[in-house]
């Protein structure tokens, strides 16, 4: 289980998660593992027929990586919501760099509601996914200055 992150403050950055360059093998594994059998992600002929240069990552693979960023920071039980916009496709050989930043903290009766802005970009900094997660953390010992 991920340990609690300790004191949390607006502006805090989550530890960056860097994934390996995208391979056809990863797409084949994810096709089978995720039940998303859309041929655009595994069959170059189908991808070209649809006007793409080649196969590209499943959106949900990229979102799973941002999920790993979150569950590497807090236990999954703290996660209240998680949403992304898929802005650009991730191509073969591209590497996703996943980052999060605390943008808001609300103190509630017995917990903290923490909003994290999420970005997954390639090595060149081109944003592929942006999103937001909301986590609820125990009140004691998690707010800077307390």
């Amino acid at each position, binding site marked *: *289980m*991920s340990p609690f992150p300790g004191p949390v403050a607006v502006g805090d950055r989550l530890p960056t998660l860097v*994934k*390996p360059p995208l391979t056809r093998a*990863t797409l084949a*594994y*994810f096709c*089978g*593992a*995720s*039940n*998303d059998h*859309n*041929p*655009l992600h595994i069959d170059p002929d*189908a991808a070209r*027929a*649809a006007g793409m240069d080649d196969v590209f990552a499943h*959106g*949900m*693979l990229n*979102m*799973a*990586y941002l*999920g*790993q960023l*979150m*569950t*590497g920071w807090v236990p*999954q*039980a703290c*996660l*209240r*919501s*998680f*949403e*992304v*916009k*898929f802005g650009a496709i991730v191509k073969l050989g591209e590497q996703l760099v996943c980052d999060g930043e605390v943008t808001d903290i609300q103190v509630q009766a017995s917990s903290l509601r923490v909003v994290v802005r999420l970005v997954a970009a390639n090595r060149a900094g081109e944003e592929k996914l942006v999103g937001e997660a909301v986590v609820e953390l125990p009140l004691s010992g998690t707010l800077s200055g307390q």
Partner: protein
Amino acid sequence: MTSKFVDIPIPPLVVEVEKWQLCFFAKAVGETNPIYFDEAAARAAGHPSILAPPTYAVTLSLCETDPYSRYRALGIDWCTMMHAQQRFDYFAPIHAGDCIRFQSRIVDFIQRRQGKLKFLIEETEAFNQREELTTRFRKTIVIRGTGVAE
């Protein structure tokens, strides 16, 4: 404008959460936290079995022979569909051994640029074998070109 697609009933889907597939998913995404692929580690962390990761409900919801048939029935070619947005709200965890019932509905269908771009928004609720709501998720799909006969 109300679309003919909105509130079309989608038959419920019931899926058993399999350990092997959670392990396969963990391998595919390069997961390193063993609570997502090792039962002993999951139990040691207080879980009844392997924990399904945050996006896994969508994977379970695609666990049918032809998950795209519902869109084809609406006249949408799956090669014109792109996943535009995805949201999850979490209420209870999903573990290996659970039996999850998915209840989906199309909540909105929006056309932009004289119908050249269409957005289909589908909402799904996932209930476990105790009838607890585990997750609600909302998928926004963009449909390019003229793949839909509205």
